[in-house]
Structure formats: structure tokens, C-alpha cells
């Protein structure tokens, strides 16, 4: 997987973090009430992914080989990336929970599992960030339209949002076969 376009297509469509891996659902459910909020949250998480990937790239030579310390290492890198992102974007990490998202640590763990190393980490994180941001903006747009649709009361809000995300994800599954 060395082709840039291939990496982008995989991260946006066939390996989308939200719709295919089920990561980052906290941000999807909390920060998609309007497009501006979704774009801002998506950018925050995308920056977090990029910072995490750069940290992994820089620390590439000291990643432990044994499984247990390796898992601990990836989790610590994700925590460092979240704190650095909050500092970079001047957000209070206690209030702005967006930068401490499962999508950041999930991406780092996925990259570790698939053996991605060096600068490829950064390209993958960039592509994954674009895919993540795109899904949040699309879901925010759909959510606005759903507010006007005659949805039964028990399904209003989160249930219909998750069902819609599921249907969108099923459409993406078509590209995998």
C-alpha cells in the first residue's frame, strides 16, 4: 500500500474509522448538531491523529517488541497526542473532550497492528483524518435534514442518527467486495 491515492481511498471509504471500524462514536453523537461544530470537532480529532502519527514516527526506534509494553506504549502516545493537540489548539482538555477520542488511539493501534512504520504513519493519519472529518460533516448535514423529517418520537435524535450512520456504512461496505 504505497500509492497515496490508495491510502486515501482506504481511509475514506473501505477502512473509514467511524463507519467501518466503529471508532469515534462519542464525537459522532455529541458534535454533529450542525456542520460548523462537526467540522471543528473533526479537525480537532484529525490534528490529534496527525500529532499521534508524528510522535510514532519520531519514536519508531523505541517501540517495544513485546505485546504488553507495546500496547502500553501506543496508549501513552495517544494520551500524549491528545494533550499536545489540546495545547496546540488552546483547548481545555477537561472541558473539550474531543481531543481525547477513541478514534485517535484506535488509529494508532490499527497502524501498529498492520505494521505501518515511518513516514507512512503520517500519510495514513492524514488520510484517516480526512475520512473522519468527511463523515462528521456528512452526518451533520443529514442530521439537519432529519430534524425536519416526520420521524416517530422514540426514534428522534440519536436512534435515527445511528440507524442512518449504519445505512451509510452499509453503502460503503459495497466497495469492499
Amino acid at each position, binding site marked *: 500500500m504505497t500509492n497515496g491515492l490508495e491510502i486515501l481511498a482506504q481511509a475514506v471509504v473501505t477502512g473509514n474509522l467511524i463507519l467501518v471500524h466503529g471508532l469515534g*462514536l462519542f464525537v459522532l453523537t455529541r458534535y454533529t448538531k450542525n456542520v460548523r461544530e462537526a467540522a471543528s470537532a473533526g479537525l480537532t480529532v484529525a490534528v490529534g491523529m496527525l500529532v499521534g502519527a508524528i510522535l510514532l514516527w519520531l519514536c519508531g526506534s523505541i517501540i517495544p517488541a513485546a505485546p504488553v509494553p507495546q500496547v*502500553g506504549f501506543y*496508549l501513552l502516545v495517544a494520551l500524549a497526542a491528545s494533550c499536545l493537540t489540546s495545547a496546540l489548539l488552546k483547548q481545555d482538555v477537561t472541558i473539550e473532550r474531543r481531543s481525547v477520542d477513541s478514534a485517535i488511539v484506535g488509529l494508532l*493501534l490499527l497502524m501498529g497492528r498492520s505494521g505501518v512504520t515511518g513516514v507512512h504513519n503520517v500519510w495514513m493519519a492524514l488520510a484517516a483524518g480526512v475520512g473522519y472529518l468527511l463523515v462528521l460533516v456528512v452526518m451533520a448535514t443529514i442530521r439537519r435534514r432529519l430534524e425536519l423529517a416526520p420521524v416517530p418520537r422514540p426514534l428522534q435524535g*440519536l436512534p435515527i442518527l*445511528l440507524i442512518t450512520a*449504519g445505512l451509510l*456504512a452499509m453503502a460503503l461496505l459495497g466497495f469492499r467486495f
Partner: protein
Amino acid sequence: MKQFWEGVFTKNPVFVLALGLVPAVAVTTTALSGLALGLITAIIMVVAAVIDWLLVSHVPDNAKLPVRVLVLILLVVGAYSLLLRENPGLVASLGIFLPLVAFNDLLLQPKDEEGSLAHILLGTCGRGLGFALALVILGIIREFLGMGSVFGQQIVTGRLAPLSLAGSVPGGLVIVGLLMAVVNVATKRGGELHD
């Protein structure tokens, strides 16, 4: 006991508060994996609550979340090491979602309880049990629809091909959404977020 039962039913983390949705959608493809991750998360949650209670007065407000994540990372790495030695198959089946417990939004949610340790533990146990229960329910439904079995016991042999989607993330999203609606009907509420 009120806060215990609230955590299990009326303020169920998954179906009412929409917390911990990542494992609920991604891991509960079988009842056993739902039960395993639910119990592991609940145990880590209770231990983390005790450590939180001990640290709460010593940590400044703006460092509370990073410290909480750090404590969770230590607990998760400990649990990972223990499970890898005792049951490597389970660790392999949970994949990246076992380490992800450290970043589970249910465990990172600021606690609204104040008071004695017993009071906090009761609320945390309720939430942990409610979370595990939700994961088991989802696991049973998804395993039955996707594979025709429950806890590995084959119940029906023939099945409709589209139902196998229940075992995938898209199917999980739809099933969680539908169960949230069922809970809303049962509790006579709308579907807006209740946190």
C-alpha cells in the same frame, strides 16, 4: 441503592446515555465477547473509581482527565497482561478494543456523585453492570441474527444472508439505534440525548 439501579436501567450507559458506544457497536458480534468486554470494563471501572476517590483532592482540576486516562492505561495494561497469560484467545478476539477500554468515554465521563466511597462505588457498580448487561443483550441479538447461535450454541441452522450484516459495524449501528428506540418506548421518552 437508587443510584445502583439507575445505572443499570433508567440511566443505562449504552441505551440511555449513549456512552461506550464504540465497544457496543464494534465488539458485540457474539454474546461471549460482549460479556467478556463488559465484565472487564466494569471491573476496571470500579478499581479506577477507588483510585479516583483517593486522588481527587491531590490533582488540580485541569489535570484530572489526563491523570484519569493515565490510571486507566495502567489498569488496562495490567488486565491485558493478565488475560494474555490466562486466555490469549480472548485477547485475540477482542483485538484493539481491549486496550481501547482506557479511552472508553464511559470511563472518562466526569462523575456527578459526591460523598463516601461506598456511595460512589454503588453508582459505579450500577453503571458497570448496566454497561455489561447492554453488551450481553447486543451480543445475544447480533450473534443470533448473524450466526443463528447464542453463546456458541446453534439455535437455528438456516438463515437469511442479509442478516449476517448484524455481525458487522453497520449492522451494529442499526441494532443499537433500534434498541435505543425500544428503550425510549418503554420509558415513554423521546430519542434526544439524556445526559
